[in-house]
């Protein structure tokens, strides 16, 4: 099994600066140091189209473009559609998980979450779970 490339670029998307800071620090602790940030779906899409990202970790509840819309845009883009996409959100209803899955989410983490869950889901979506 190939080791996870921890030098890959990771894009984290959340409109709460505090959450961006927390996720960035948790990623740093598991040795993902190339982390870029976006505060909404539109900014994320611009960064994704202009860069080479191996993983997207996004909140759902954002404006003007939500995390679900971002996911749909990513899956509709020929150059981005295979990018692993993890949704981290406080939305925990069955219909949310179903909608995200139908849109092509790679994994789904409900807030509040812990570092172990984050590491576990990253390993799963990158094929090491």
């Amino acid at each position, binding site marked *: 099994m190939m080791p996870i490339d921890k030098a890959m670029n990771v894009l984290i998307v959340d409109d709460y600066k*505090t959450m961006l800071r927390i996720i960035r620090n948790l990623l740093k602790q598991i040795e993902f140091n190339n982390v870029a940030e976006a505060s909404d779906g539109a900014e994320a899409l611009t960064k994704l189209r202009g860069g080479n990202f191996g993983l997207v970790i996004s909140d759902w509840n954002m404006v003007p473009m939500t995390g679900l819309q971002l996911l749909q845009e990513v899956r509709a883009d020929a150059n981005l559609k295979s990018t692993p996409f993890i949704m981290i959100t*406080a939305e*925990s*209803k069955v219909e949310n998980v179903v909608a995200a899955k139908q849109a092509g989410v790679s994994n789904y983490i409900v807030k509040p979450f812990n570092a172990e869950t984050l590491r576990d889901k990253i390993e799963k979506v990158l094929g090491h779970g």
Partner: protein
Amino acid sequence: MAEQDGGRLTERLAAIRARHPGAEPEMVADVVHAVLATMSGDLSAQETSLLAEVAALGLTIACAKAEIAALRFDDITDSHIPFATDELDAIVEHTATATNAILTCCEMLDDVAGGLSGEPAAKLRDATTRIYEACSFQDITGQRITKVIATLKTIEAKVAYIVATFGNGATGEDAERTGEASEAALLNGPQHPAVAMDQSDIDRLLASFE
């Protein structure tokens, strides 16, 4: 007989007026006249009694409208709700400031851990990990407070609607909002822990798609 009944009606109307001095008598009179205008011939005792009840009902409605109009609902929209939302905004701001201060300290501890090795480094990093995890409370509480603010605004709109409908006739905004976008119905924010799905529930649900 009709004269006797008419006298009784007058007495009852007077008594009702005495009980509800704030009501608008001309409104009651209008209602009674309007009803009378639709009728022909002498009124029976039963019909007179019915008219009196209609008049009493009219007065009751007039009184209720007067009381609603007298309510200082402007206080709710101009003072109480803005005060409550400002207080809630301040809570979010204070917790954000405190959380960022905690995170700054935590990042310093992480830097210190980077200069250590072995068990001390591991212990320090484990502690900072737990602090990072705990600090996500600020996001959750922020979302919950946003839901409370939205609820307050809904109450504000409903009060304005009720007053506009039954009160002084001021124009109110319809409290019922319809036609929400389909995805908006999915944005409910944090659920109460007692009823929310946890991570293991979500993992099972996702696995069911495989």
